[in-house]
């Protein structure tokens, strides 16, 4: 089943957290990115975020910036993102787009929603809009049956968590730390507190991202969240690869390590 609600129903039944993996489309090439995402699925990733490369990614740290710059230099565009979604969604895992707002607005919000839906996409994670600015997207996603994943942050007031979760569907993306994407050594205590505060406002699944890179961190987060989101660590695996085949191997084994992590501790109580 390729819907997000279906995924979380299943992972809850299995007593574990879901594993969500991110890679930008078009890095190192359009085909190379698709191959890497398929390897993530083989390794045990439950849902894929396809990053839409953007020239000014102000929520991303150096690792993802480097990958996205290379994707843009080699000409990756929004059409390639949709093709990537189509190829990954065929595997049956929920496939989302993670994007900054301007490329979607420029493509046309309605057109983007329609083509994403046709490609088999599940929804969009919007990095730089909050529900207040998302009017056109709320309408289009409703019409196309797409999930809209908004972020909550440690700095979000309870009132804002309520506003954001009320507009969200699929799951809520809880940013584990104040900052940009990129691997960090430890899981911040703020992550657990934010999940608890969010849990008080919504019945939607809550997934934690930003800074998660290892199986042990995934295991720690799986104790209190419904899902673990990993991005920069997968990108780094590709950046450090000695060959395309090596990159695929690294991505697959990282996925397996993280999957073991989300399975060790059981799901949220």
């Amino acid at each position, binding site marked *: 089943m390729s819907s997000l609600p279906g995924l979380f129903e299943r992972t809850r039944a299995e007593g574990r957290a879901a594993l969500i993996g991110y890679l930008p489309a078009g890095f190192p090439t359009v085909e190379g990115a698709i191959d890497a995402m398929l390897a993530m699925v083989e390794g045990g990733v439950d849902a894929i975020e396809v990053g839409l490369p953007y020239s000014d990614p102000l929520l991303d740290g150096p690792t993802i910036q480097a990958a996205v710059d290379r994707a843009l230099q080699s000409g990756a565009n929004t059409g390639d993102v949709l093709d990537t979604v189509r190829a990954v969604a065929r595997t049956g895992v929920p496939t989302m787009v993670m994007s900054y707002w301007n490329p979607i607005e420029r493509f046309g919000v309605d057109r983007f929603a329609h083509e994403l839906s046709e490609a088999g996409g599940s929804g969009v994670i919007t990095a730089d809009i909050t529900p207040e600015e998302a009017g056109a997207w709320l309408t289009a996603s409703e019409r196309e049956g797409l999930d809209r994943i908004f972020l909550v942050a440690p*700095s979000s007031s309870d009132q804002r968590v309520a506003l954001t979760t009320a507009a969200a569907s699929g799951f809520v993306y809880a940013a584990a730390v104040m900052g940009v994407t990129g691997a960090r050594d430890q899981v911040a205590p703020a992550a657990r507190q934010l999940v608890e505060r969010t849990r008080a406002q919504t019945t939607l699944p809550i997934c934690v991202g930003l800074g998660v890179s290892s199986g042990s961190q995934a295991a720690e987060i799986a104790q209190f969240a419904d899902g673990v989101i990993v991005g920069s660590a997968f990108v780094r695996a590709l950046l450090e690869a000695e060959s395309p085949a090596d990159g695929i191997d690294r991505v697959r084994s990282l996925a397996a390590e993280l999957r073991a992590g989300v399975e060790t501790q059981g799901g949220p109580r």
Partner: protein
Amino acid sequence: MSIDSHSQAAPSAGYDADSTGHWGRFGGRFVPEALVAALDELTAAFEQARTDPDFIATLAHLQRTYTGRPSPITDAARLAEHAGGARILLKREDLNHTGSHKINNVLGQALLTQRMGKTRVIAETGAGQHGVATATACALLGLECTVYMGAEDTRRQALNVARMKLLGAEVVAVQTGSQTLKDAINDAMRDWVTNVDRTHYILGTVTGPHPFPTMVRDFQRVIGDEARQQVLDLTGGLPDAVVACVGGGSNAMGIFTAFLDDSDVRLYGFEAGGDGVETGRHAARMAGGSPGVLHGTRTYVMQDEMGQTVPSHSISAGLDYPGVGPQHAWLHETGRATYAPVTDAEAMAAFELVCRTEGIIPAIESAHAVAGALQVGRDLGPDAVLLVNLSGRGDKDVETAASWFGIATEEGGA
């Protein structure tokens, strides 16, 4: 350059953004959720400060005793001979401490930083004027200061990098993207979202997420408030036109704001035309861009058909930015102000003219306004009175100008 001077509609009442920072479809807050709390805190602090007599008095005292306000008006008679005889009144923001209008905004925001109990300031800078002004205010008020500057710009503006360091600021050379102003803003935003609990981001122009466009405009409106009275005192009437250059647009909003409700006063904003809008190498967002979202606001943006930001180009680093303040986008759309490009060559011709006729070396940014004013003067005729914002001085541009005009600088070791 060509100016359509018949496009200015009568103003509708009110030029302020709505309570969420929108001017029509422009403006707003397109930011990661993590920054919303800081923007709410800033909005509240600013709303409180702007009506607090203590804050107003402290800022006014600094403007008078530190910046050197009010800045004078110079009646540029010899320059006017080249503008069809129209009277040209220069608002001398170049005479401010640190050399441009940037200090007006920085002092206001640095005082706000203290009010919010924050101890660290970050800023972006292109040419270095806003960075120098921010480093200055931080030295004055005892705030820690980090300035983000594109690596390309740190090479082009080494003197301003040294100034900032002398003033005690840390300067971070930004190596990402195009290594220019837009990338410096990206990195400043990344720092802010990471360190927001003790850090205020002093954005240098009238763009970015709400409340920045409104707040920066209000700290800059002193330019127009002073100038309106100065022109009335000098001429007995209002000017026929107010002219400014527009990068992000803070000096222009600063001088326009006092005249928005004077429907007989024409407002002109001149953007960087670079090599010419038709070449694609320019920073003319109104003529060569389209509505989009950049750096937290919806405005006119230079972008490709996929919504990727296209690098801008100008001989003037201060105008070399692919976005523009959202209120300018609104004034453009409503027709209240007229925007037109000025090429590098036109700006440098005006630069030389101001040097030779008035004994003022202007910033190349401000030379764009002068070039536009020469055309506006010829269009409006010899009876017209033009108020031109001379937003900064050209010390920082001497090397660029010497190179442009082929002046040998070998003996100076440059």
